[in-house]
Every structure is written in structure tokens, then in C-alpha cells.
């Protein structure tokens, strides 16, 4: 049964705009690959590094769930709802663009780059009132286990998303065999290795590699010590 895709790190799209270095897991802006148009409702997974004092000035979005996960540095967010904030490592930000918002995302520092993941997920309900939220997730709460950071109903203190989607982070100091049960039978699982190494069904993924799986209820992950993972449990249509 064909229920798996593997996206090795070096097959991602690459953008180099000088101030912005970005790897795209899926087609985005100038990178177009018809085989990489998303994974279910997951449309964008960008791995961005932005030079000091640079960034994305004011721009619009609508009808998209936009999640930013800083990896290092400080990212300043401003939006047309009046939110002004700086997010950093261990914070997660979510914005439901809904009927439409403007926002900017700038590197707050003048001498350090900011690195962050940006994730776009198609919404469950369209044209909702725009909303913004952010939260700090203590790293001890994801040590050698997965921590829910985004979910439809705010499970375990996570951020709420307008979609039947769950995002989880894990940081492993020990070698662990972790069994993950998908939340819904209609969902697939996209496993993105932030660092380290994970073996799934005899397939080994290393830093920034990814695997997408669907038509499964459960998966066993053999996670090596020193690994960090992002799991995206998302509807496949």
C-alpha cells in the first residue's frame, strides 16, 4: 500500500534573497514542484533564517492558519488587530487570518539572525474573524516525550487552531521508542526532524528530513538521543 512519502532535507526548495535564506518543504513563492504541493491541509513548511534587522514588512493574508515556531533569535510581530509582540525560542505563535489581516515579521535584533519555522495550514472554517495567540512552552515538558503545542480544542494548554490538526514538539536526551496514535482516522502524520535521527519502518531520517504517512492508526518512532522532532497530525483532505 502506498501510504508514505519521504522528503529528504536536500530535496527541499531553496530560496536565497540575501537577507532571507529559506528551505521550502513544499512549493512556495519561486519554488514550484508539482510533487510537493503540500501534505493534506498542510500547505507550507518553511525553514527560514532572516538577517539582523530584516524581515517581511506589512503584507496580507486571509483564510490560512499561520504558525511560527522560533528556533533561535527574536522575531517581532505586528498585525492589523493591534498585536505587537516579540517571540523567541520556546514560544509558538498562531494566527487565523480568516477574513483578512495584515502583519509584519521582522528580526528584532540588529546583530543576530532569527531562525524560525513557518507553517501554513488550510482552515477548517473559512472567513472567520481573525485571531492571534502565542504561548511559551517549557522545554522540560517535551523532554523525552511529545508536547502538544497546537490542537483544535487547546488540549494540554496548547494553542487553538481552526482545523482538526495537532502539532507536537519533542526533545529527546535519551534513545526512545515512541508510539504515536493518530488523533483521527482521516488524518495523516508528517514527521519533521529538527535535529538528530529517527528510524521509522527501517527508514532513517536525519536532520531536516521528513516523512509523511497516512492510512495508519499508529506509528512507532525509534528516536536517537539528541533528537528534536516536530509532528504534524493533519487532515488529508
Amino acid at each position, binding site marked *: 500500500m502506498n501510504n508514505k512519502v519521504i522528503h529528504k532535507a536536500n530535496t527541499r526548495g531553496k530560496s536565497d*534573497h540575501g537577507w532571507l535564506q529559506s528551505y521550502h518543504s513544499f*512549493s*512556495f*513563492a*519561486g519554488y514550484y514542484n*508539482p510533487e510537493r504541493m503540500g501534505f493534506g491541509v498542510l500547505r507550507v513548511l518553511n525553514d527560514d533564517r532572516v538577517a539582523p534587522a530584516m524581515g517581511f514588512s*506589512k*503584507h*496580507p493574508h486571509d483564510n490560512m492558519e499561520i504558525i511560527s515556531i522560533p528556533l533561535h533569535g527574536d522575531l517581532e510581530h505586528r498585525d492589523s488587530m493591534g498585536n505587537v509582540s516579540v517571540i523567541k525560542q520556546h514560544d509558538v505563535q498562531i494566527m487565523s487570518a480568516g477574513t483578512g489581516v495584515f502583519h509584519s515579521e521582522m528580526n528584532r535584533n540588529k546583530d543576530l539572525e532569527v531562525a524560525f519555522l513557518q507553517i501554513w495550514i488550510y482552515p477548517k472554517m473559512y472567513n472567520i474573524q481573525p485571531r492571534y495567540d502565542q504561548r511559551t512552552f517549557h522545554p522540560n515538558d517535551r523532554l523525552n516525550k511529545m508536547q502538544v503545542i497546537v490542537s483544535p480544542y487547546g488540549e494540554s494548554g496548547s494553542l487553538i487552531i481552526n482545523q482538526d490538526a495537532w502539532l507536537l514538539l519533542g526533545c529527546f536526551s535519551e534513545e526512545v521508542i515512541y508510539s504515536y496514535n493518530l488523533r483521527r482516522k482521516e488524518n495523516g502524520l508528517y514527521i519533521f526532524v529538527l535535529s538528530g535521527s529517527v528510524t521509522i519502518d527501517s527508514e532513517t531520517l536525519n536532520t531536516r528530513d521528513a516523512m509523511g504517512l497516512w492510512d495508519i492508526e499508529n506509528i512507532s518512532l525509534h528516536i536517537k538521543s539528541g533528537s528534536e522532532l516536530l509532528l504534524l497530525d493533519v487532515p488529508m483532505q
Partner: protein
Amino acid sequence: MYGLAEVDRTIASIHGISLTNNQSDEVRFNHLPLPNNPIYEQ
């Protein structure tokens, strides 16, 4: 739609957003106008 005329089109395009003008010169935007991103065609 919103005040789109003030948006830097290059930044928007790098960020996967295309801004276009319609017949009444009203600026509109689309996410990810793939594969024909007008900025990258220039």
C-alpha cells in the same frame, strides 16, 4: 480590499503572496499563485 497599495510587492512575493490590480485598479492578493508567480517571471 484592505490597503494593499502600500504593500511592498517584492516582499509579498518572496512570502508567497501575489498582488494584482483589477480593471478598476483595485489591488487584490492571492496566496501562492503557483506556478506563475509574476515577480519571478520578470
